[in-house]
């Protein structure tokens, strides 16, 4: 191996690592606020990527219909939750949030599709389809379990993952899709060709990290989300609705997932089940950083990306194994360092 190959591998690793970082950030965010280990994070990536690819191919994205169904299901769950104290205002809000919003998105996509919209508009449409799903998933699967243990929440997360995987197969089919690349040429840096696409990946990762930091440290809502994570009773006593915090966290996670999907869609062929593996690598990074630190997660994710790139060169058959084995020494060190019996 010479220096040029190493540079190529590093570049590849950094680009992938930046995507893993986005997923890891979303997982840390969701876990901090709701204690859910959000396995389905990867599905949002696949949904985002496949939705954009279908729009690129001029096909009506199945996720738009899925959004309508998810909204309707969430509406029923909400209605059941409100059965004892249903007021006109609450009913109206539920109708607007769970029925009207998805219907509007569906209608907008249906109307705009024949006009062959530009890339920017397609990205907006993709986000409009994918982002609200985060809140619906929370309403359907996790809000009823808000006081359950981490283990129960993890099991629910695995269930949601399997459901979203199956729905992905139904709505996208089994064949892989690839989106058109983002416009703009790259530039050459020594032997490396830096594409506009990879620059977009780095930029977005950096922006999301800074944005999350500012949101949690500087804004009242961000502090309220952290407070919910630290002490749910305390949060209730100062008037923070924990259900709202959870909904916001999941919506943000879906947004990060959708953006990640949009970023990778032109770089690789995405299948309905591609998200899981990407999500797991983000998860490894989040675990290495203790599911607690945003900058730590980014550093760990970049390391995961680089190690994966090197592994795919030296032992390509084992590259997944190498990446997932990383978690073992980390867990060992963490469990030795933290001492026994740390229950929440």
């Amino acid at each position, binding site marked *: 191996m010479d220096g040029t190959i190493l540079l190529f591998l590093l570049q590849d690793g950094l680009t992938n690592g930046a995507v893993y970082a986005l997923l890891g950030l979303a997982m840390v965010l969701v876990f901090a606020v709701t204690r859910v280990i959000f396995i389905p994070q990867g599905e949002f990536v696949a949904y985002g990527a496949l939705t954009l690819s279908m729009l690129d191919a001029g096909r009506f994205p199945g996720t738009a219909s899925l959004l309508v169904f998810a909204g309707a299901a969430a509406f029923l769950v909400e209605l059941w939750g409100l059965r004892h104290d249903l007021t006109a205002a609450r009913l109206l809000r539920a109708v607007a949030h769970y029925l009207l919003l998805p219907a509007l998105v569906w209608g907008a996509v249906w109307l705009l599709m024949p006009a062959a919209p530009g890339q920017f508009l397609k990205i907006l449409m993709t986000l409009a389809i994918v982002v609200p799903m985060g809140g619906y998933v929370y309403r359907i699967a996790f809000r009823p379990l808000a006081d359950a243990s981490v283990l129960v929440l993890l099991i629910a997360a695995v269930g949601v993952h399997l459901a979203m995987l199956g729905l992905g197969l139904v709505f996208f089919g089994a064949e892989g899709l690839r989106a058109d690349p983002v416009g703009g040429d790259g530039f050459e840096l020594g032997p490396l060709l830096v594409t506009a696409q990879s620059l977009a990946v780095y930029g977005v990762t950096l922006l999301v990290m800074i944005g999350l930091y500012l949101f949690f440290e500087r804004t009242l809502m961000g502090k*309220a989300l*952290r*407070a919910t994570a*630290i*002490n749910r009773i305390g949060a*209730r*006593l*100062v*008037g*923070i609705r924990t259900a709202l915090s959870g909904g916001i966290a999941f919506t943000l996670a879906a947004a990060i997932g959708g953006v990640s999907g949009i970023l990778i869609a032109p770089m690789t062929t995405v299948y309905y089940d591609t998200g899981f593996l990407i999500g797991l690598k983000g998860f490894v990074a989040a675990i290495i950083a203790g599911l607690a630190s945003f900058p730590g997660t980014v550093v760990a994710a970049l390391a995961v990306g680089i190690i994966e790139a090197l592994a795919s060169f030296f032992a390509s058959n084992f590259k997944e194994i190498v990446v997932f084995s990383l978690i073992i020494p980390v867990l060992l060190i963490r469990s030795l360092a933290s001492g026994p019996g740390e229950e929440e």
Partner: protein
Amino acid sequence: MILDVRDLHVAYGRAEVVHGVSLGIAPGTIVTVIGANGAGKTTLLNAVMGLHPSRGQVLFEGRPVPESVEARLAAGMCLVPERRELFAAMSVEDNLVLGGFLRSADERRETLEEVYQRFPRLKERYRQQAGTLSGGERQMLALGRALMSRPRLLLLDEPSLGLAPRIVRDILQIVADLRRIGVSILLVEQNARAALDVADEGHVMELGQLRHSGPARELAQNPAVIETYLGFHAA
């Protein structure tokens, strides 16, 4: 009456622990409920705040209280729970700011200044993590956080719990001072003597019912109360 509780029943599953309690608080007064551990005092407070479902009537400023905790908070009630429930991993200032979560940004800024004036110690430590404060400071922070919501009625659950006697006096002095800015207080305490010292009116709670009620001064003289709740301290 700023608070009017009528025939309140509270149950955990089938086991009823508060059996038909009625009490009222006149504006600007301190009413204390004293009693032994397990008498149902905390349950009573939690039910008044809406943390726990109950049967019976709770009127705040003459109107039935709203259903949810945050609506009661917005209406002007605030509970300082026994365990304080601070945000341990956040700074003192963030804890206070979140106390004013339901208020406007202007109100929050203004009230924060007032709270810092009342608790200079909190101002000194505004960047320190709440979890690293001493017991007395934590209770100050819990009170300060509650004041940030601009309550007209404070529900205090055992503010003296776990504090050194000198600090108990300081804290209760602060509580007594709150009356002057027009905050009415329902004070639940095991430390009967200290509570009756600051309160205007008192109730003794036993097994989920109010056994003795009256002006705090008179309760402190009541032989039955002295024997059960004050005797040890008086000796």
